[in-house]
C-alpha cells in the first residue's frame, strides 16, 4: 500500500482534537482575522495510522547496525527519553523566576561539570543548539579574543580532511579559509602548518581523531606551534567518542571544542535533530564565552543571562547571546542520564570498545578491501576504506552502499573524507556486539566477492527491496516541488 500525503486524505470537516467551546467574547483581533488556510482535517485514528506507516519506511538504529562514519549512531537508551519527560524538566518555562527552577539549573550545572572535567577544560558554553552552532560559538569566541587584543587576524587554517561545516563556519564568521594538506599517513602536515602560521592566522580548525579515523600524534606540537603564533586551536569534537574518558582535549592544548551531545552522549538523532553542541573553552578563551551561564553559589544556582551584568563578572567579556533562552534542555537531560549511567569508568570503556570494534572491522576486511592508512597502525573509532579494491569491477562505492541496504544495513559514510578516492567510512560504535559485527563483516565480504565476480549489473540498480528504488535527485533539484499541490510529479 502506498501511503498518501495527509493533504490527499483529509477534508475540512474532520479534526483529530476536541476542544471545549470558547466563551463568548467580543473579538479583540483588531479586524485582522485569519484568511483561508488550506489545511486538511483528519481524525485521530487516521493520523496515528498514517505516521505509524510512514515510520515503517525508515531505517533506524533500533532496526539494525548503522555504520555511518563520523555520525556515531549508537544505541539510544529509553531511560534518557523517560528522564527528559519528567514534568520537572519538560514542563517548565525558560523565563520562570530562577528560584522556581533550581533543579533545572542544577541539572545544567551538573552536565557542565561533567563536560569540563571530561575534557579538562575550565569553561563550557551550554547554549549552542548543535555541532555546527557550537563551531560558530567557538569561532566567535576566538574572534572576540583577538579583537580584545586589538588584532584583526583574517585567516583560518583548515586541514583537507575537515568536516564541511568547519570552513562554512569560519567563512560565516568573516574569515578567509585556507587548506592545510595531509601527509601520506592521513595526518595534518605539521611542517606545512608551521610554514603557514603567522600574524594573519586567527585559528586552526582541526578534527581529532580526524576524519580518516586517525589520531593526530603531533597534536601537542600542533597546539604549541599555533599558540606560539598567537592563534588558537579549535577542535571539531564530532569524534570525541573515540577518546572520551581516555584523553582530555585540554591536555592536548585545545582552546575550544564543541561536543555533539547527540553523538558522544547518545541523545537521539531523531531523523536530523534536534542536537546540542556545548563548547568547552581553555582559560584563554573562557572570558569570551557566550551568555547565559549557570553559576553555583553555595546552595543556590544563579542564571547569568544579562549582558548588563558584566561588570566584575567572570563573563564580562562575553561575546553575547547566541540563542533565545538557555540551550537544549531536553538534550541536556538525556545526555546527563547517559553520562551518569556510564560513569567515568563506563565512558572510558565506551571509547575502548568503540575503537576496538572499528579496528576489528578494519582487520576483518582489509584483506579484501583497500584500507589506505591501514599500514600506518590502528585506527580510532572508524575504519576507512577507499575504492581501490573495486578497480575494474564497474562497481562504485555508492553501489556497494546501496547494496548494503538490501542486506538489512544502513550504508556507511561514502565519499568522505575527500582525501581518499571513493571513501567508505565505517563507524560501528561501541554498542554493537561481536556477533553483529561478524554478521556485518560477512555480508560485506560477500558483497565484495560478488563485485569482484563481475556482478556489476546487480549492484548498479540496488537496492531492490527497500521502500523505494534509487530516487531521481536531479529531477528534484531541476524542478523543485517543495510543497504539495494536487498535481503530483509522479502523475506526469
Amino acid at each position, binding site marked *: 500500500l502506498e501511503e498518501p500525503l495527509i493533504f490527499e486524505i483529509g477534508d475540512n470537516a474532520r479534526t483529530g482534537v476536541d476542544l471545549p467551546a470558547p466563551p463568548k467574547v467580543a473579538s479583540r483581533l*483588531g479586524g485582522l482575522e485569519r484568511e483561508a488556510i488550506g489545511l486538511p482535517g483528519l481524525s485521530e485514528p487516521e493520523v496515528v495510522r498514517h505516521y505509524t506507516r510512514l515510520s515503517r519506511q525508515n531505517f533506524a538504529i533500533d532496526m539494525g547496525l548503522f555504520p555511518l562514519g563520523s555520525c556515531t549512531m549508537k544505541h539510544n537508551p529509553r531511560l534518557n527519553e523517560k528522564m527528559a519527560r519528567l514534568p520537572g524538566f519538560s514542563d517548565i518555562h525558560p*523565563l520562570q523566576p530562577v528560584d522556581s527552577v533550581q533543579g533545572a539549573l542544577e541539572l545544567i550545572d551538573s552536565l557542565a561539570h561533567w563536560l569540563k572535567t571530561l575534557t579538562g577544560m575550565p569553561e563550557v558554553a551550554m547554549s549552542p543548539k548543535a555541532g555546527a552552532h557550537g563551531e560558530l560559538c567557538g569561532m566567535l569566541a576566538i574572534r572576540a579574543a583577538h579583537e580584545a587584543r586589538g588584532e584583526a587576524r583574517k585567516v583560518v587554517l583548515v586541514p583537507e580532511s575537515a568536516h564541511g561545516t568547519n570552513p562554512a563556519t569560519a567563512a560565516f564568521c*568573516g574569515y578567509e579559509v585556507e587548506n592545510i594538506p595531509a601527509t601520506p599517513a592521513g595526518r595534518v602536515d605539521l611542517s606545512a602548518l608551521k610554514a603557514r602560521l603567522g600574524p594573519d592566522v586567527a585559528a586552526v580548525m582541526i578534527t581529532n581523531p580526524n576524519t580518516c579515523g586517525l589520531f593526530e600524534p603531533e*597534536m*601537542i606540537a600542533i597546539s604549541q606551534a599555533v599558540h606560539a603564533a598567537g592563534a588558537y586551536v579549535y577542535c571539531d569534537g564530532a569524534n570525541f567518542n573515540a577518546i572520551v574518558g581516555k584523553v582530555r582535549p585540554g591536555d592536548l592544548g585545545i582552546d575550544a571544542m564543541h561536543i555533539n551531545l547527540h553523538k558522544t552522549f547518545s541523545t537521539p538523532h531523531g531523523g536530523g535533530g534536534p542536537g546540542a553542541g556545548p563548547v568547552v573553552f581553555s582559560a584563554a578563551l573562557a572570558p569570551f564565552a557566550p551568555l547565559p551561564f549557570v553559576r553555583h553559589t553555595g546552595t543556590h544556582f544563579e542564571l547569568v543571562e544579562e549582558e548588563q551584568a558584566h561588570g566584575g563578572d567572570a563573563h564580562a567579556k562575553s561575546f553575547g547571546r547566541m540563542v533565545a533562552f538557555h540551550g537544549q534542555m531536553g538534550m541536556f537531560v538525556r545526555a546527563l542520564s547517559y553520562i551518569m549511567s556510564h560513569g567515568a569508568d563506563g565512558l572510558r570503556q565506551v571509547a575502548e570498545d568503540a575503537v576496538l570494534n572499528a579496528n576489528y572491522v578494519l582487520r576483518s576486511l582489509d584483506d579484501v578491501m583497500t584500507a589506505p592508512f591501514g599500514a600506518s597502525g590502528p585506527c580510532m573509532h572508524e575504519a576507512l576504506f577507499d575504492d581501490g579494491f573495486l578497480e575494474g569491477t564497474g562497481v562504485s562505492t555508492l553501489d556497494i552502499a546501496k547494496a548494503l541496504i538490501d542486506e538489512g544495513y544502513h550504508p556507511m559514510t561514502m565519499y568522505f573524507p575527500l582525501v581518499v578516492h571513493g571513501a567508505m567510512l565505517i563507524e560501528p560504535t561501541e554498542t554493537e556486539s561481536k556477533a553483529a559485527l561478524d554478521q556485518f563483516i560477512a555480508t560485506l565480504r560477500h558483497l565484495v566477492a560478488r563485485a569482484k565476480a563481475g556482478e556489476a549489473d546487480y549492484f548498479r540498480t540496488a537496492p531492490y527491496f527497500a521502500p523505494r528504488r534509487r530516487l531521481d535527485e536531479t529531477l528534484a533539484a531541476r524542478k523543485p516541488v517543495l510543497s504539495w499541490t494536487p498535481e503530483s510529479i*509522479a502523475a506526469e
Partner: protein
Amino acid sequence: MRYLPLTADDRTAMLGRIGAPGVDDLFRDVPAAARLSGPVEGLPLHMSEMEVERALSAMARKNLTATHVPFFLGCGAYKHHVPASVDHLIQRGEFLTSYTPYQPEIAQGTLQYLFEFQTQVARLTGMDVANASMYDGSTACVEAIFMARRVTRRAKALLSAGLHPHYVAVAKTLTHFTDDAVVASVPTLTEGAPGDDVAALIAAIDDETSCVVVQNPNLFGHVADLSELAARCHEKGALLIAVVTEAVAFGAVRSPGAMGADIMVGEGQSIGGGLSFGGPYLGLFACNHKHVRQMPGRLCGETVDAEGKRGFVLTLSTREQHIRREKATSNICTNSGLISLAFTIHMSLLGEKGLRDLAALNHARAVQVAERLGAIPGVTLLNGPFFNEFTLALPVEARPAMRRMADAGVLGGVALGRLYPGETALANGVVVAVTETQTEDDVDELVAAYEEAVSC
C-alpha cells in the same frame, strides 16, 4: 555496563584478530603525556538505571512545573495541550533513532513528513515555500537577516522595538562579526499599542535597508496590520521579515503572507512541543518562490524513483555546507527533525478546523482574563488588539512581584524587567499569556495573586 555488548571473552578474541596485545595498544598514537591511566578523576563511576532515575527525579522535583500551578507565561514559549498520540508517535524507534535522510530509499518516513511539514508551514504562514525547520525562532530570525543581505546585497537591518529582546540580542551577536548593521530601539509601553513602531519603521527605511524585522503579535501581544509596511519595504527594495513566536496565532490572525511579508520566521514550539525550559524548540522559515535558492536550511522535494513511484529527497543541497563548504548559505547542519515531526503530527490532528477552534479558544479566554485583570484597581491593560497575550502596567515593580507570586505558587506572567533589565520605563510591565490550558480555578488564583501583588 548494560549498554555495552562486548564481553571480556569477546574483547580478547577481537584483539587477537587485530593482532594487538591489549586495547591500550590501539591508542598508541595518543601522545604519552595525554594518555590517562584510569577513569577521569573527580567523577563518579557508573550507576544503575534506578539510581540515575532517583538522582534526576530529585532534581526535577525541585522545579515548579506549569501543569501543577496556575501558569500564565509566554514571551516566546507557550504551554498548550499536546495530544498524547504526538509523543507516542515521535518515540517510535524508526523516527527517534534514525539519521538525517541522506539515503532516501530507507528514509521515506522522515522525508514524507518533512514534505508535509513544509507544506503545512507554507500554508499557515501564507508563503510559497518553507524549509525543513531550523534550531529555533531566534536563530531562524538571524538567518533571515543574512538571507535578506544575500537577496538585496544590502547590509542594514531595521529591527522593530516589538521584537523579542532575545532575538534582537542574537541578531546583534551574530551580525557583530559580519558587515551587517542592526538598528534596534527600546520599546515603549504605549497604551493601545505597546511596542508598536510600524510608523517609525516606515519612516526609517532607506536605500541601505536590507530588511525590516517585525514580530506580530509582538512581544507585548499587540497585533498590527503590516500591509503598509510591506508596501513601503517593497518600494524601497527591502524585504519585510515577519516574526511569529506563537504559532497558534496562525489560526486566528491574518497571515504574514497575506500582509505582504517576504520572509516569515517563527518559533514553532507551540504546536506539538513542550516548554522544556527553552529547548529544543523549532525554527520556522518560509519565503516566496523567487527567493528559494537563497533560503538557508534543509529542503525536502518531491521526485520519482527508478520505478516511477513518487518519493521524496533532500534537495537544492548545493546551498548547504556539506556540499558548498565555505560558500554555503549558512553553517547549519542539523535541523529540529523530531520537533518538526511533533509539529506535523499535532497540526495534522488539528487540521484547519481544530487550529481555528484552538486559536478562537485561546483568544476568547485571553480576552476574559485580560478584562478581569485590567479591572483590578491600579492595574492597566495596555493592549488594544491582541491574540492570547497582553501587557499590564502595574503600580509596582513587576519582577519582584512575579518572584513573590512564584514563591506563593502562581506563575503569573513574564516581568519586562527580566527581559529588559536596565530599562526602568518598562520595569512595571508584565506580559501575561492565556491559552486553553488554564482552568477557571487557575484564573481565580491568578486574579487573587495580582490583587495581592498590587496591594503590597
